[in-house]
């Protein structure tokens, strides 16, 4: 009887969420005038944007501009002073931890490896919210294997985390997030520590899951050229303010980069892909 009641309630809730989403088109995430800060200094000022399902969104900005804070607010582990974030039409803070973890996953900037878990154990932790305390299910094992293969780290699975190189660690951390199989992925500098080959590999993987599974990726990235190649949209932050949000082509140009970073760049359009390439100017005296 209880299960019947629960499923009825769940259906009702689903129906309500669906109607909200339909109202706003394909919007999966909406940030409504977020501000955050400590006493006098604001870290984020009145940030607003909305993200559609299937988008690859890059967050870009100088160090200390509030990128990580913004991610944590989207993730729902930090509550904003003002404004709120809607995930699937519902305030992200109103989700129970487990309910939220089925929708949104996260790669943090500073991973902690105190104790020597193996890679397989680490990636399996991504299945926490789906798996059962008492019995192992084959689909969990499959998801873990898929995630390891997608990040080209299947051969690392027996290694201890404490013995991995920086790049290998980053790959298996991303694998853990992929194993969580959420429709929405948040990544704080996922390509940090990786050489150019693995940066491309990770970004290709993320792009693929955006295209094929209609997943949404929001990632803090620094490389302008990689953002041009892979991201659909970009959000440019400076000192906690959103300088621009929209299609990458519209957000990133000589002027916006100069304004955000104070760095001179020149751009050139790739004739095939129409992506913009960025070149540094006036660097050497």
């Amino acid at each position, binding site marked *: 009887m209880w299960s019947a009641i629960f499923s009825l309630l769940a259906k009702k809730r689903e129906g309500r969420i669906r109607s909200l989403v339909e109202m706003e088109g394909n919007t999966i995430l909406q940030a409504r005038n977020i501000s955050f800060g400590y006493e006098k200094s604001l870290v984020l000022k009145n940030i607003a944007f909305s993200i559609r399902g299937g988008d690859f969104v890059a967050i870009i900005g100088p160090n200390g501009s509030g990128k990580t804070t913004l991610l*944590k607010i989207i*993730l729902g*582990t930090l509550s904003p002073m003002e404004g709120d974030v809607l995930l699937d039409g519902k305030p992200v803070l109103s989700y129970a*931890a*487990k309910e*939220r*973890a*089925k929708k*949104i*996953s*996260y790669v*943090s900037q*500073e*991973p*902690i*490896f*105190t*104790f*020597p*878990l*193996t890679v397989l*154990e*680490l990636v399996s*932790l*991504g299945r*926490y*919210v789906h798996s059962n*305390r008492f019995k192992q299910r084959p689909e969990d094992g499959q998801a873990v294997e898929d995630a390891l293969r997608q990040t080209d780290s299947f051969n690392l699975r027996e290694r*201890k985390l*404490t*013995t991995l190189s920086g790049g290998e660690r980053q790959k298996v951390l991303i694998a*853990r997030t992929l194993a*969580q199989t959420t429709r929405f992925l*948040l990544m704080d500098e996922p390509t940090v520590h990786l050489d150019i080959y693995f940066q491309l590999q990770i970004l290709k993987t993320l792009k693929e899951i955006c295209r094929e599974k209609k997943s949404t990726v929001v990632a803090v990235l620094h490389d302008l050229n990689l953002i041009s190649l892979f991201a659909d949209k970009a959000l440019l932050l400076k000192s906690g303010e959103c300088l621009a949000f929209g299609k990458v082509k519209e957000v990133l140009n000589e002027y916006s980069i100069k304004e955000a970073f104070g760095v001179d760049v020149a751009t050139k359009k790739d004739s095939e892909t129409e992506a913009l390439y960025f070149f540094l100017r006036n660097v050497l005296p």
Partner: protein
Amino acid sequence: MTRLTQGWLIVLFFLLVSFTLALSTGPVKLSFLSMSPTDRVILFNLRLPRALSSFFVGGGLALAGAIFQGLFRNPLADSYLLGISSGASLGAAVALVLGFTSPIAVFTGVSFFSFLGSLGALALVFYFGSQNGAISTFRLLLSGLGVGLFISSFVAILMIMAEEELKALIFFFLGGFSSSSWETTLLALVFVPVGVLIALYYSRELNVLLLGEETAKSSGVNTKSIQAIYAVLAAFLTSVSVSVAGLIGFVGLIVPHMIRMIFGADHRVLFPLTFLVGGTFLILCDTIAKVIIAPSELPVGVVTSICGVPFFLYLLKKEKGEYGL
């Protein structure tokens, strides 16, 4: 046969051997084949509760250490170094001085006060060891050392003031099982297994917490309640151990590390094996304490420290950044 199965078999074998040793050694030589009534009393009323006490206290202390290490992601955390044991012993000392004298009242009063003491110490260590909600390895240890020393000085004051209960108080400093009875054993026998089950039940969540709070939250773990459950549980296990056997150091520090080095850091494996090995280790230490200078006894805390400190120093020297020190 997997490495883990082999591990379990070896651990269980050693447990059996040490338990047999504990039952068959002592100042009186027992003839197991034709037991006299006195032999029976010695075996069932002295040696059996003593062996069980040392097993559950050792297991409880080791498990508390494993929990503290996992909870604070800190390889040097254990009840002793964090000052939690000191809190528990102050609580127990206060209960003794306030005069819970009937056997049953000692049993409940001492353990209850000792639990309060360990919770109080935990709160202090946590308060001084964290900054803006974040806990660093060194800050936590320094805070634990400070709080532990501070509390111990109060125990010393109590000892000077309370002449009558001096003997009972000294017992808490030395630690041991020489006065184990079924009454004290029962405390460990009932509460430690409950603690083991709770620790095992949430071990998956603690695994996820190893990745840091932010990541654990995003993985669906209710971090605040898991942390609270484990902190209280470890304090509880510490206070049970202290009420039964006084202060015994280093079991909680070394045993989890031994298990981690051999079987890895997964708490679902680490917890049960740590409990069993911790129990076995303390049975052996207590047996050594009992026989090495017979007919008198060494305090078991001395034996665990003599075995434990060199291992601890060896770990410290060997550590190459794998544990994030």
